[in-house]
């Protein structure tokens, strides 16, 4: 050991002083968990000293510090000590405040503990049970709000008034003992341990000849030693340094000096070290040396003592450990959720890019049956940013179908869905970053009264919606009417945001991604170079070419449609969005569907989003169709369809793909007045909605 060199360098000096390696405290993670439990359930405000237990071990490989270890079982003072380890009795002072921790009288605590050791030495109790020589104090303060634990160990050691002179330098046992003696020592030690019904003996007496070694417990001194000119004592030594014994020897030497000091000339000390490497045991690296014990003062006053542990900086002071990461339930939930998702990657899909999913900011327009199920599936994927927009309150019929709400939420007129959904998400997973907006989405065909106040409100709603869409990466359309999806479709399209749309019939659903128009800057270039198949509208039988792309004869009309040519929810419509609830019978207005449908569609919408995110081209990915084979899937998770249309009556899904309609009321250039500047386009849309609310310009303009 590097720190030992000073000892070797000064070895020529006659009056070399014996130095001891102090204990380093070592705490198992479970100790703090257990202290927390004890504090909460048992000690509470009780600050009185508690008996605890640690242990030390003499079989460490070289290089490890001399440790006194406390496990979670430390609070069970009568519990078993690990095999081949020596116990140490401790006193725990757990204070209620940091201030009490700071101001507690450390000197007095040490003196009190030392006095007990001294009393045990004087009374002879320590001769009968020498393990009580190894004591410790642990002063703690547990800040259970921050999970900060302040602590300070003390390993009391009584001191001689002067230095202990080394008569014979420490040597490795194998340089002093023959192989035969070493074998005899090992056997004698094991015999003694069996006799004492333990697997480790902290202190023992020793006599040896050239062939034999005899050991005896400390209490047998008078019968064991006939000649006390030179005695040999053994100490179970947790230190691994080649020139120094560990801490437990200190109080033994005081005991020897007190009991037999006047009779002893020199004391030979065996630092018994017993390690097993690769299954083979050895004790020959034990240390052996001789010392002359200084005289203790004649009075029976307790000697001076030392023992408070230094902190990592080498100064006298307490330590603090911050365990919020492994104890704060919120932190634990976060790391568990993340690791569980990574498990999926390690197990099944090594190339899965989870960060892309987790970091996606999702805007959920609608917090009803679809919104609730979409949110839950997003959380399952570890998505952190989930924002809700809804203007409804929770009604009595909702909770059974909308898994984020409970009966209580319906009382007193019902809580706002958007707000209640946020609260619930936080309860399910506090790591989520969720916001709710209780607002309406302006719809064409639903005229508002033309009072300045309502117009202004509509204008604010539009602006708010525009802002929200800008701030998110993916927009989910989960409302219960067709027309409310129109404005978000237009805005999200102009901002090039991925739109996931889910809509329910009674036993049918559609889940789709909207075509993602190419960014305005590169539009001309890529459109010109594009040689993909004909862009005829998917819905109309006419072969009107869409956009400016050249029409090329294609083998399959609907295969290999790139993301920027895919249609939106409104592309297949022959009418413009209007009030779908007006002029309908009650059952036509009703949005009743089979209860399982929303869960299926909501889950599929999220899963489709995740697959799209895994595609290198994201929303521009070529649409997969039902005909695509799975042998070369475009992403690690499989296909990236344009639409999933499900028919619950047949328990069947199909994956159609359709082209954007160049006269679409929502996504064609016409609907944004041909402007490429998103801001301008949106503003025009906004103002036209507000100003020409019921004039049906879109119904007239889009389709003509």
């Amino acid at each position, binding site marked *: 050991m590097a720190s030992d060199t000073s000892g070797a360098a000064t070895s020529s000096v006659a009056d070399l002083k014996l130095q001891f390696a102090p204990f380093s405290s070592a705490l198992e993670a479970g100790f703090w968990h257990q202290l927390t439990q004890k504090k909460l359930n048992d000690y509470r405000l009780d600050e009185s000293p508690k008996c605890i237990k640690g242990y030390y071990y003499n079989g460490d490989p070289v290089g490890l510090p001399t440790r006194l270890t406390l496990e979670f079982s430390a609070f069970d003072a009568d519990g078993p000590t690990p095999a081949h380890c020596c116990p140490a009795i401790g006193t725990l002072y757990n204070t209620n405040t940091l201030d009490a921790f700071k101001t507690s009288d450390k000197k007095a605590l040490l003196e009190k503990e030392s006095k007990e050791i001294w009393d045990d030495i004087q009374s002879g109790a320590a001769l009968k049970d020498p393990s009580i020589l190894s004591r410790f104090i642990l002063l703690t303060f547990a800040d259970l709000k921050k999970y900060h634990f302040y602590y300070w160990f003390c390993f009391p050691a009584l001191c001689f008034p002067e230095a202990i002179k080394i008569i014979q330098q420490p040597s490795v046992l194998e340089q002093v003992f023959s192989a035969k003696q070493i074998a005899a020592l090992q056997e004698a030690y094991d015999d003694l341990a069996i006799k004492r019904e333990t697997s480790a003996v902290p202190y023992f007496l020793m006599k040896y000849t050239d062939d034999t070694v005899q050991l005896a417990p400390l209490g047998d001194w008078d019968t064991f030693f006939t000649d006390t000119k030179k005695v040999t004592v053994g100490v179970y030594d947790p230190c691994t340094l080649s020139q120094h014994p560990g801490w437990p020897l200190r109080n033994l030497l005081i005991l020897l000096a007190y009991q037999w000091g006047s009779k002893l000339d020199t004391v030979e000390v065996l630092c018994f070290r017993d390690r097993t490497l690769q299954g083979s045991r050895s004790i020959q690296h034990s240390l052996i040396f001789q010392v002359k014990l200084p005289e203790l003062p004649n009075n029976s006053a307790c000697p001076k003592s030392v023992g408070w542990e230094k902190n990592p900086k080498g100064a006298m002071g307490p330590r603090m*450990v911050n365990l919020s990461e492994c104890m704060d339930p919120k932190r634990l939930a976060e790391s568990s959720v993340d690791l569980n998702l990574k498990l999926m990657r390690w197990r099944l899909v090594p190339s899965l890019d989870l960060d892309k999913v987790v970091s996606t900011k999702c805007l959920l327009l609608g917090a009803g049956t679809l919104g609730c199920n979409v949110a839950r599936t997003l959380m399952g994927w570890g998505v952190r940013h989930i924002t809700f927009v809804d203007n409804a309150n929770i009604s009595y019929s909702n909770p059974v179908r909308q898994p984020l709400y409970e009966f209580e939420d319906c009382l007193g007129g019902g809580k706002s869905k958007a707000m209640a959904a946020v609260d619930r998400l936080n309860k399910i997973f506090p790591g989520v970053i969720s916001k709710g907006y209780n607002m309406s989405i302006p719809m064409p065909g639903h005229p508002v009264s033309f009072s300045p106040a309502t117009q202004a409100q509509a204008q604010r709603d539009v602006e708010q919606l525009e802002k929200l869409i800008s701030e998110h990466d993916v927009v989910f359309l989960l409302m219960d009417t067709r027309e409310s999806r129109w404005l978000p479709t237009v805005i999200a399209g102009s901002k090039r945001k991925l739109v996931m749309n889910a809509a329910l019939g009674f036993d049918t659903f559609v889940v789709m991604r909207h075509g993602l128009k190419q960014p305005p800057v590169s539009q001309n270039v890529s459109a010109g170079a594009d040689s993909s198949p004909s862009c005829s509208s998917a819905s109309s039988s006419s072969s009107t070419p869409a956009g400016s792309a050249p029409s090329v004869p294609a083998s399959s009309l609907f295969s290999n449609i790139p993301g920027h040519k895919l249609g939106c929810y409104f592309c297949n419509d022959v009418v413009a969005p209007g009030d779908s609830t007006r002029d309908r019978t009650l059952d036509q207005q009703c949005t009743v569907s089979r209860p399982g449908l929303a869960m299926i569609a909501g889950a599929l919408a999220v899963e489709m989003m995740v697959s799209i995110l895994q595609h290198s081209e994201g929303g521009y990915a070529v649409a997969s169709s039902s005909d695509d084979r799975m042998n070369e899937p475009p992403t690690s998770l499989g296909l990236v369809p344009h639409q999933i249309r499900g028919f619950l009556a047949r328990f069947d899904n199909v994956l159609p793909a359709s082209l954007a309609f160049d006269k679409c009321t929502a996504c064609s250039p016409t609907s944004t007045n041909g402007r490429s500047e998103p801001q301008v386009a949106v503003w025009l849309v906004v103002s036209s909605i507000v100003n020409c609310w019921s004039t049906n310009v879109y119904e007239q303009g889009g389709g003509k």
Partner: protein
Amino acid sequence: MTQVSTGSEADCMEETFHHCCQLLLQQSEQLRDGWSWESVQGSQVGYLKKTVLRSVDINLSSVWDQVGSSSDSGSHSVCHQQQQEKSALVASYDADSIKEDITDDDGGFCAVSKDSRKVLQYEYHILYSCSYSTPVLYFRAFTLEGRSLSLEEVWSSVHPNFRIRLQNSPLNTITQQEHPLLGQPFFMLHPCKTEEFMRPVLQLAQDQNRPVNYVLTWLSVPSLTQQPQAKLMLQFFASHSQVAVPMRKLKKCRAP
């Protein structure tokens, strides 16, 4: 799936598990390998436990940053970690600022000791999973202060060569889970693949009419043994024929 395959050769029944553990403990005691049986108070339920200490020559936080930026963790958790480090620094300053009148007056009795903060303790628990009918490895690593490391920090304490190999290994399926008996957070080697990789090993042993200790063999599967605790298992592996019992005998313990 694993659950469906009850009765196959690669299963390990709970009684078999306990029996194998007893044999393993006996041999561990001979080899002083440090395994112990920890039982839950007043019950038969328990687990094998072993703690291993290692000196690490690394600065945990800096290595962590490298790991974090490479691929393994999301940027959000890197941020988190840094906050964490920061708050730890600030707070430890708190502990330092507690002035003490205790003097270091040991009259030169105290030997200089090394900075011990770079020692890590690894704790391994082996439990029986009823759902998977296999042993499951739980583990955590912590500093001498008792602070558990994050999984990224654990990885950073593994030699880079090993790290890459292990992280690409399909067997390396680590997740975080509360310890079923202690309720404390542990990392867990997910047992979902255990049956799959045990089957050929056991089949081979049976074909050669060799005795097999299920738990020992499981511990000796390469990717398991290349975990930080590694080498100790090899010792077992080398001598496991001494303690192993014929699989046929063990099968008698099974429920019909």
